[in-house]
């Protein structure tokens, strides 16, 4: 009874949100629904006649007839077919739990309030290109591209998809952890010294939203650790736990405004390191944190560090862990880690550049003050820091238009694109260590499509 009602509530919620939240991208369908309809969409959009099965035969159509332009949605749906079925965690399984039915019920009370949790929920429900929904998918594709050791028993394999059941579970854990971080990040700082929730009505909304957000994130974390434990591989547990650690650590780096939005370091705070060699985790000890202090003062290295902690770590470590499950060599595991890391960084650079694609900053659009264009521009023109200081209390106090214009006039955007290309190339280069399969091809297509976004 509970479950049925949970489903209904979720569906109602989906129908409600578009009406009540401004500025939502109307053309998109909730991912769970997409699951059922995407084949039809494919037929309409691309007039497909060939019915390639998901049997993992090496007969991918795009290998012979590459699409003229790399299309993101197409690259993703084709990739989903290659590994069996869409892996987005927002699948029916996720909806069929009492706790989530409960959350949906409570979320309804928040619809219309200004709590950032609603924004996060919206992002998760509507599969926009801005959210990298495809993380679990990437993990599965890397798993399939690498294959598994001959010693893995038959019962553990999902033959039709070419991945192990354990790898599928890991992909799900990866998405759960990422969502839990996003949800925990939507908690509002309600300390009495802050601006947030000063009047009673909003305070109640905010504090209720915090409660739901916190519990939902904890629910996801708790379930991911239970799923991880069931994989019965302690090295994998160790690795993925350290990715959770990296997520939390990333929220402490550098200066922050009242709502913990990051601000860049004041130019000249650190001596610029003489040798700009990238830093990464200690391979032999996952407990050792990222030595970020070594690179502060170099915009590119600093950006890289922040975003490895914030994104690359989970994707890289999940890819690595997935190959661990398949009994692959340490060397291939390292390649998988590097692939995930570079892919996440390339993706982040692409997202960072996005607000600067149009000459005028669209209304209500802002950008992170530690995004690559801002950091590069600060290196070029340290004087801009004076304007950023206005954001010390809240980043909303900053004149984004002015900074947008300044950045467009400077060399930062070119450098950001360069950065993206650098990591794209690195990811593609690492891929060459994997055997040529339809899964590898799908990964390449996703990377190329990302470049065109």
């Amino acid at each position, binding site marked *: 009874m509970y479950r049925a009602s949970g489903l209904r509530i979720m569906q109602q919620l989906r129908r409600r949100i578009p009406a009540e939240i401004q500025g939502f991208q109307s053309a998109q369908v909730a991912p769970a629904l997409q699951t059922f309809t995407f084949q039809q969409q494919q037929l309409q959009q691309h007039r497909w006649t060939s019915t390639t099965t998901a049997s993992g035969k090496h007969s991918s159509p795009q290998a012979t007839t590459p699409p003229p332009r790399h299309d993101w949605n197409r690259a993703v749906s084709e990739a989903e077919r290659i590994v069996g079925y869409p892996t987005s965690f927002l699948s029916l399984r996720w909806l069929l739990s009492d706790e989530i039915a409960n959350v949906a019920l409570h979320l309804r009370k928040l619809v219309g309030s200004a709590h950032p949790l609603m924004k996060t929920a919206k992002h998760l429900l509507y599969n926009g290109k801005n959210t990298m929904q495809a993380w679990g998918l990437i993990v599965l594709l890397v798993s399939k591209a690498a294959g598994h050791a001959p010693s893995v028993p038959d019962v553990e394999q999902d033959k039709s998809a070419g991945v192990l059941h354990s790898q599928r579970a890991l992909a799900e854990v990866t998405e759960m952890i990422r969502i839990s971080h996003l949800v925990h990040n939507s908690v509002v700082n309600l300390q009495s010294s802050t601006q947030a929730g000063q009047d009673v009505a909003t305070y109640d909304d905010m504090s209720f939203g915090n*409660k739901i957000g916190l519990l939902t994130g*904890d629910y996801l974390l708790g379930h991911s650790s239970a799923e991880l*434990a069931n994989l019965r*591989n302690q090295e994998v547990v160790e690795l993925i736990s350290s990715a959770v650690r990296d997520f*939390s650590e990333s929220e402490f780096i550098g200066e922050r405004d009242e709502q*913990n939005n990051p601000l860049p370091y004041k130019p000249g705070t650190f001596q610029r390191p003489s040798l700009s060699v990238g830093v990464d985790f200690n391979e032999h000890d996952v407990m050792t*944190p990222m030595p970020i202090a070594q690179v502060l003062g170099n915009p590119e290295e600093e950006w890289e560090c922040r975003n490895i902690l914030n994104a690359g770590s989970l994707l890289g470590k999940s890819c690595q862990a997935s190959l661990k499950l398949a009994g692959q060599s340490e060397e291939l595991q390292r390649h998988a880690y590097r692939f995930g890391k570079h892919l996440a960084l390339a993706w982040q650079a692409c997202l960072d550049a996005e607000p600067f694609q149009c000459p005028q900053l669209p209304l209500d659009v802002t950008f992170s003050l530690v995004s690559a264009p801002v950091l590069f521009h600060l290196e070029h023109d340290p004087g801009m820091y004076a304007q950023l200081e206005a954001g010390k209390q809240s980043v909303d106090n900053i004149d984004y238009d002015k900074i947008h214009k300044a950045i467009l006039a400077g060399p930062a955007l070119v450098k950001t694109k360069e950065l993206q290309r650098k990591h794209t190339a690195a990811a593609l280069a690492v891929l060459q260590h994997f055997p040529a399969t339809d899964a590898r091809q799908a990964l390449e297509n996703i990377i190329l499509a990302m470049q065109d976004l």
Partner: protein
Amino acid sequence: MACLSTSGRVVCGSRRQQAHKLLYQLLGSRPGLTAPAPSTGFTPPKVQQQAMRLFHGLSFSMGKDYPDLLQSPHKCSHSLKYSQSSQQNVRQHSSVHTQQPAGPVREFQIDPYIILDDDLKYFYDDVRYLLKSGTSQPELDTIASYYFDGQGKALRPMVTMLMAKAINYHLNNESHQLVHKQRQIALFSEMVHSASLVHDDVIDQSDFRRGKPSVNALWNHKKVTMAGDYILSIASIMIARLRSDDVTIVLSQILTDLVQGEFMQLGSRETENERFAHYLTKTYRKTASLIANALKATAVIAQADDNVAEVAFQYGRNIGLAFQLVDDMLDFVSSTEQMGKPTAADLKLGLATAPVLFACEKYPELNPMVMRRFSEPGDVERAFELVHKSHGLEQTRFLAKKHCNEAIRLAQELTESPYQKGLQVVADLVINRMK
């Protein structure tokens, strides 16, 4: 024997000095280690402190003689003698009163905190060391270690270690390596508990905990949330390093239970019949599961059979339930100073705990208040008054007592040892505690 101290931390203080003296007498002849001047308090040289904490925490580089000495039966008699001779100290230092009447002297006077002194002495230092080693960000370290100041009761690690050692004795396997692993499980239990406190602070928005400002009063709530996740991740890494699949599975159950318990507390509106069962399930998930599964994990890692593991689990479940029942009762009777947090806090949060649910039987007018979560003005005061007029508190205590007796019965299934006795004493401490 007037009081079995519940204030283990305080006793440890005085006991600790004597233990150190004993230890340094024993070690005095070893080359490279010199005994400190015994006169002024106790301030060990840094090198020695380091050597000590390595033994307790992370490696076994210490000479073998020292642990052997402490393991010998000789040590046990020392331990008992010291616990008697330090009675005077207990009375002087203990700030806590128990409800146990000054009656006939008990046959065995075991203070679990004293027999576990070796395991608990550097407990919080080890947690803080772990948390520090996992991050490069000082603020994260500060928030994460805030509640590991050694001021808590350390009930969970204490019970975990008692059960671990009782099981080891039962199985006749007392290797130091095993104890070390079980101690990691104890660390895990305390870390998960603190992580849940940190997240609770953000949810409940209370300003004080354990007599000091709570984390949410001092730091950005976003950072506090992340610090909770951080503690959890470090604890998971530590457990993964034990390389035992079964232990990880048993312990991961704790996390899912904790969250499910929190969701249950968000409150669906059950009928009167279901309400008590709902309350007990919630209590199990929020409190007892942590103790029960941690105790079970110590049995699993000792490769005990399923029966022993089940004894450990059920003992922990009963102790956990009794502990929470007493906690819910104390919420109505203790003063703010004693608890370190405001009283009737549960009512103010809209929660109907056992005393209220029992009181409902005599005063049905409480039912609508329970349903509306004591939200109307005057509800909290009225409910508080009715609970005191009813037998709700006695009934809650009676239920807790039943769980404690069951726990004692379960403990008796293990081979008799000081630790097994200690498990029975813990049941007394839980029912008789005042804070």
